[in-house]
């Protein structure tokens, strides 16, 4: 009856976790990965196209990109997934049968693209106009200059925000559930939730969370390491611990006279 004990058992019951573990490993993890990785790839590509359209000088590209972004960010993800899943289901049935994954991935990608597009756009727009001038003066076309000079700088500036979106995507993959999943198609969160519903204990949900952490933490740190490497132009030599992420510290001022 000790409330703390009860709380602990509700969220940290090892027994429940152990019970859910095999299914999470063999069913949930692969499914989450399939959904998230495919949607991340497709969503990032579409997002980049949206970002470029969004800063284009032609309003016939800018406006559709704007409207797309507004609509796909604005609608509840559940509604978008349902709309696409139900709307395209007859088509999907003919092409790949009743598997909800293709349409689910499509819907997730379309939603993610709207967010990622805005992230890339903000990064690209933050690059100084002088950089574009520099590239174009060398004879690069607008497209080439963007591709070779502007976008690499712009995207690097927003890598952490992009990781945000990938993490959101890993978790949003659970929404494919709205399209109906057989047991072997359930991803991590769904399995956790099923256990919670059948036992009334939330530990399996927390276990799903631990799986998420096992995916998202390395992702974050790999991207941060890449970011640092790009920033400094070479693999950080020696103990990078105290200089990483500290570009805004005045060089040399990191000694005894910090403030």
């Amino acid at each position, binding site marked *: 009856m000790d409330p703390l004990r009860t709380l602990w058992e509700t969220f940290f019951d090892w027994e429940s976790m152990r019970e859910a573990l095999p299914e999470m490993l063999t069913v949930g993890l692969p499914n989450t990965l399939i959904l998230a990785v495919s949607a991340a790839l497709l969503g990032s590509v579409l997002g980049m196209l949206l970002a470029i359209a969004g800063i284009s000088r032609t309003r016939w590209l800018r406006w559709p990109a704007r409207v797309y972004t507004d609509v796909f960010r604005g609608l509840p993800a559940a509604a978008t997934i349902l709309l696409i899943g139900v709307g395209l289901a007859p088509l999907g049935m003919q092409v790949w049968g009743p598997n909800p994954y293709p349409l689910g991935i499509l819907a997730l990608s379309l939603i993610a693209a709207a967010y990622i597009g805005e992230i890339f756009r903000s990064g690209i727009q933050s690059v100084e106009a*002088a*950089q574009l*001038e*520099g*590239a*174009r*003066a*060398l*004879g*690069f*076309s607008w497209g*080439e200059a963007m591709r*070779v*000079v502007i976008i*690499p*700088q712009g995207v*690097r500036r927003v890598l952490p925000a992009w990781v945000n979106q990938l993490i959101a995507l890993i978790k949003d993959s659970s929404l494919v559930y709205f399209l109906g999943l057989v047991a072997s198609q359930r991803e991590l969160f769904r399995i956790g939730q099923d256990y919670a519903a059948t036992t009334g204990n939330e530990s399996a949900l927390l276990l799903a969370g631990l799986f998420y952490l096992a995916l998202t933490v390395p992702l974050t740190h790999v991207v941060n390491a890449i970011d640092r490497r*790009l920033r*400094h*132009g*070479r693999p950080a030599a020696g103990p990078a611990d105290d200089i990483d992420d500290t570009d805004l510290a005045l060089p040399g001022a990191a000694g005894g006279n910090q403030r």
Partner: protein
Amino acid sequence: MSIDTTTSVSLGVRDVHLAFGANRVLRGVDLTVARGATACVIGPSGSGKSTLLRTINRLIEPDRGDVLLDGRSVLADDPDALRQRVGMVFQQFNLFPHMSVLRNVTLALRRIKKLPEDEAVAIARAQLELVGLVGKADARPGHLSGGQQQRVAIARALALQPQVMLFDEATSALDPELVKGVLGVMADLASGGMTMVVVTHEMGFARQVADTVAFMDRGVVLEAGEPAAIFETPEHPRLRRFLSQVL
């Protein structure tokens, strides 16, 4: 790095007008540079010198007027092709901060001239050698001194072997020794047939390198001519006043 003289071209700027909003920065600029000649543009800060250079390679489209290469208007052509013939060194350098010095120089060689990597690197190293910076080939621009950055910008533009070079204050961050060095490079380029427009506020430099000196004030060329004429017998009172201030 000598230039093929058969490709050297003349440059003509004809009545170029340009306004940033209400600020009429260029108000009918005329300038003629013969094939393989060097023109120096001098004039007070804000008179439109940098803007003029930008209109020549069409980083800015003029509101009115024309730019001629060998008598042919460039406005009808593809600007990208134009810019491959017309190199530029910016006043603020505009180096790419996310690439090493070497990559800054090889980038256009590889991507535009489509040279293979090793050839591009060879050319770039030769150019960096010329400006005394091979040792910094792997550094990022952000880790260079002002003069070093300016020299990278010069090397980057020259590596492409353009027919026309536009230098915007190309020696502002250089010490006298390097100015002398750049002067030597320019002499080589000129004798190689490259046509150059050099914005500068160092009169000694202008006197040394120029075939023609043009004095700009408030968006127009007030006076142009041989260096001797401009510096020794200036006619326009504004130019006289300007030159009287030289230390």
